[in-house]
């Protein structure tokens, strides 16, 4: 009672305060759209001016030559130019196969890290060490290491695999660690009382994990999983360093033959054609999920 009175008296002592912003009011409605139209047109005009300037001509010739892009895309065997489009198919299927394997292995690693059984202690330690290593070393380094190192070892069966197999192994090796951490965060995000409710119904720990924890965990981290998939999809480009003929490698060859680097541009566009829709889809899922959470908030 005393404290409220003193607070009121403090405020009463000639406290003049304003409810008006000091800056100009924010533009709304029609005035706002006119201004945004003007600013957009200005940016476009500047962009055109830059591209049309004489110094940009070399840039356009070297990177944005549509004819060269097309040649790089379909390839020209007579000149030794290999198809970037065909190479990109390898990036696509490699990322899909790797993603499936990653999703399965990472789940195992994540549940292993969260297990409490004393028998599994050494495996838990190994799992932690693996995650630290795989996430802390540049993927390209592992790629060079495995892609050039393993064949040089002359181990029967292991050293004679195709570079695509090494590349796939390296991608799975690197991304399993990331995805395992995402899964782990997801599992930890499921409230403990969900586990207790399931266990108190007589569900075993395995059944609880499968029917109660994992469905909620995966839902909670779906955006992060899709993010990592997008990342994996474009990281398939590193297979080019060990001579696998993917979009990037093909573009490199085309550039070497024609001395025009529009092949890199078309390769970029191909990657973007996949990753942008995937990113938008992720955004949508996130927005939907947020809506669901807000609706479900108690």
């Amino acid at each position, binding site marked *: 009672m005393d404290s409220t009175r003193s607070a009121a008296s403090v405020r009463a002592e000639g406290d003049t305060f304003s409810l008006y912003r000091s800056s100009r009011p924010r533009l709304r409605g029609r005035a706002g759209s006119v201004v945004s139209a003007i600013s957009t047109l200005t940016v476009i005009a500047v962009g055109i001016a830059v591209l049309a300037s004489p110094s940009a001509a070399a840039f356009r010739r070297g990177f944005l030559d549509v004819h060269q892009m097309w040649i790089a895309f379909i390839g020209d065997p007579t000149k030794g130019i290999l198809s970037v489009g065909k190479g990109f198919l390898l990036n696509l299927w490699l990322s899909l196969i790797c993603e499936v394997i990653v999703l399965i292995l990472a789940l195992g690693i994540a549940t292993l890290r969260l297990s409490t059984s004393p028998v599994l202690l050494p495996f838990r330690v190994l799992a932690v060490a693996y995650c630290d290593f795989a996430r802390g070393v540049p993927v390209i380094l592992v790629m060079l290491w495995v892609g050039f190192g393993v064949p040089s070892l002359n181990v029967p069966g292991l050293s004679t695999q195709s570079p695509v197999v090494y590349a796939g192994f390296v991608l799975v090796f690197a991304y399993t660690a990331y995805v395992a951490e995402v899964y782990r965060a997801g599992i930890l995000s499921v409230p403990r009382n969900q586990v207790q409710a399931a266990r*108190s119904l*007589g569900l075993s720990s395995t059944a609880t994990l499968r029917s109660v924890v994992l469905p*909620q965990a995966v839902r909670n981290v779906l955006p992060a999983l899709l993010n990592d998939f997008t990342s994996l999809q474009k990281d398939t480009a590193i297979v080019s360093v060990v001579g696998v003929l993917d979009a990037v490698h093909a573009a490199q060859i085309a550039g070497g033959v024609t001395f025009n680097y529009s092949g890199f541009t078309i390769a970029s566009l191909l990657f973007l054609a996949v990753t942008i829709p995937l990113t938008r889809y992720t955004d949508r899922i996130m927005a939907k999920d947020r809506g669901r959470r807000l609706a479900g908030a108690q």
Partner: protein
Amino acid sequence: MTAGTPEVVLRVDDVHKRFGDLEVLRGVSLELRANEVVCLIGSSGSGKSTLLRCCNLLETIDGGSIELFGHDLAHERIDEDLVRRHTGMVFQSFNLFPHLSVLDNVTLAPRRVLGTSKATAEAEAMVLLDRIGLAQKAAEYPDRLSGGQQQRVAIVRSLAMSPRLLLLDEITSALDPELVSEVLGLVAELADQGMTMLLATHEMGFAREVADAVCFLEDGRIVESGTPTKIFEDPDEEATRRFLQRIIDAGRL
């Protein structure tokens, strides 16, 4: 308590439980016979919830013993999943599975634990849901239900396993006042049907109405226990009187 003394379902004997330095239960003993309803009352932190959780092996005890259906829960060969299969537990925070529909919430345990077929489990679940008037909500997700409805579904979810003992942990404490009665009504109905229940509650009027015995806990001990009439109208202990006075002052009796 009643003539013929039915079998002892739960016997808690001198149970101690420590969380680090804090001793939450300091020698609690009680007995629960078939078809009996025992209410645990006492302020927050008196050990009511911990005691319930120990009976369901959600917590391990540090001393004393708990016998369920004549079996010592501390026995090395006790299967905690089997213990829980036969004892239902309902929580303050409902804990329905948010990713499953109401129907799937109820059928999950019978299907996964008992191996009941989907059709049978669903038919049985619909009977239970119909009994609480929520059959039309079977396909809804929990977040579309009111707190009272969620808690009634949580009770039904436990009942779907046909438990022989129901542990209810302050199941109305998270509810808006106007939703409390629908949940307590269901519990009273179960009591009438002879369900054996041990419940922690702050609803003294309800405890008085349905309980066969009331135990007042303070600082991890059962200070006083007896019939509701005895505890609420003529308690022996000063501590019980003080507690009840506080409840009356708060307008909750």
